[in-house]
């Protein structure tokens, strides 16, 4: 093997890489917020709403979960303009990722709500709590705790999948790779380095999520 590895040539592009990391973090954070809101609403529609709403929610979840994100992005970015809906690449990316995460998190949240035993809900009602109070004080915490691992894994997956939006030219870490590649022609080094940066991001996400889990859900020894 006589390939001459030149990772050092990437160092000149530190700023681009840092910018890419920040953009990916921003995009992921915004997607998580919007996706969670969609997820909660859709999960509520699937568990508690009357027929038509339930049907709409089910169609949404199944459609998104059974088609590739790439094609969803193409439809939003290339298809919708023919209906007069025009988005910038970044807007299309945020929209596509949020709609995608919304469907997956709706399923996770629904499972969480259903995992809280009916007897817990009854115990709340028997104490005179109304539906909202039972949800807020009895169900919410228990459901969140039970779905936390699945939900945060989904967030990490989302962060990794956000690389796909580079295909429509949205600005984030993976997009920086093609830029640096076009300047340096060191494709292998560029994509290896970028992939390793994603690995680091995964580790950071995991530690943060674990930290949150410990501080919120793990019970302190008796006071």
């Amino acid at each position, binding site marked *: 093997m006589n390939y001459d590895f030149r990772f050092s040539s990437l160092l000149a592009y530190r700023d681009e890489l840092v910018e890419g990391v920040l953009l990916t973090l921003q995009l992921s954070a915004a997607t998580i917020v919007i996706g969670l809101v969609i997820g909660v609403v859709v999960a509520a529609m699937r568990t508690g709403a009357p027929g038509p709403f339930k049907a709409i929610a089910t169609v949404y979840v199944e459609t998104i979960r059974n088609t590739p994100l790439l094609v969803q992005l193409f439809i939003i970015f290339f298809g919708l303009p023919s209906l007069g809906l025009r988005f910038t690449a970044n807007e299309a990316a945020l929209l596509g990722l949020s709609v995608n995460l919304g469907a997956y998190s709706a399923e996770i949240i629904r499972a969480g709500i259903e995992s809280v035993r009916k007897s817990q809900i009854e115990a709340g009602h028997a104490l005179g709590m109304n539906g909202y109070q039972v949800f807020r004080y009895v169900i919410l915490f228990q459901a969140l705790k039970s779905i936390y691992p699945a939900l945060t894994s989904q967030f990490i997956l989302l962060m990794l999948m956000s690389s796909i939006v580079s295909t429509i030219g949205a600005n984030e870490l993976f997009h920086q790779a093609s830029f640096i590649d076009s300047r340096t022609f060191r494709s292998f080094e560029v994509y290896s380095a970028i992939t390793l940066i994603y*690995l680091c991001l995964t580790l950071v996400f995991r530690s943060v999520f674990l930290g949150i889990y410990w501080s919120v859900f793990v019970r302190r020894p008796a006071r």
Partner: protein
Amino acid sequence: MIREFGSEDILFLLLATRWTILLTLASALIGGTIALVVAVLRIVPLRPANWLAIGYINLVQGTPVLGQLFIFFFGFSVFGWSVGAWTAAVTAFSIYASAYLAEIWRGGLQSVPKTQWESSAALGLTYLQRLRYIIVPQAVRINIPPTVGFIVQLIKNTSLASVIGFVELSRAGQMLNNATFAPMSIYLTVAAIYFVICYSLSNVSQRLERRIHVAR
């Protein structure tokens, strides 16, 4: 030259779908074989083997498929091998599938009760015999639904092979789009084809899951 999106285009997409399916099958088979080894390494009572397997799984699951795809696409030429998009894609998706399948199957293997290990050990079976004759057969049933579920993920992810120029369903859609410029109808058709395949498989997975739950 711009023309209308017509029925011959749908045929074109359906023909390209063969490549999506082929890529999925090849990756699932090769990936599954690797996964079997990784899953066993993950559970054998030998720390270094466990660490190796954990490291491998975390490495693959902690990086984007798109990155893996580019690394293999450009990586082969680093070693002086010139390979096409097909080989790069099959390699990348096999590696990707192997990590996820290994993790799924590990869960299945570990869900077999400890007493099964103990009682087969009491019969004088060696570790590998216990695994081969007692544990794996019991784990297979539990593992089938999540494995089918993962195949759905794999099918969707093979759409990414389009970015390295491999012509499967998504890439075929892009090509048609350049010729006809009817993006909405083309990509909706592409999505519909994916949906039919993935939704049927998802349903199979759910039905199997339910049957196993009832049986237990």
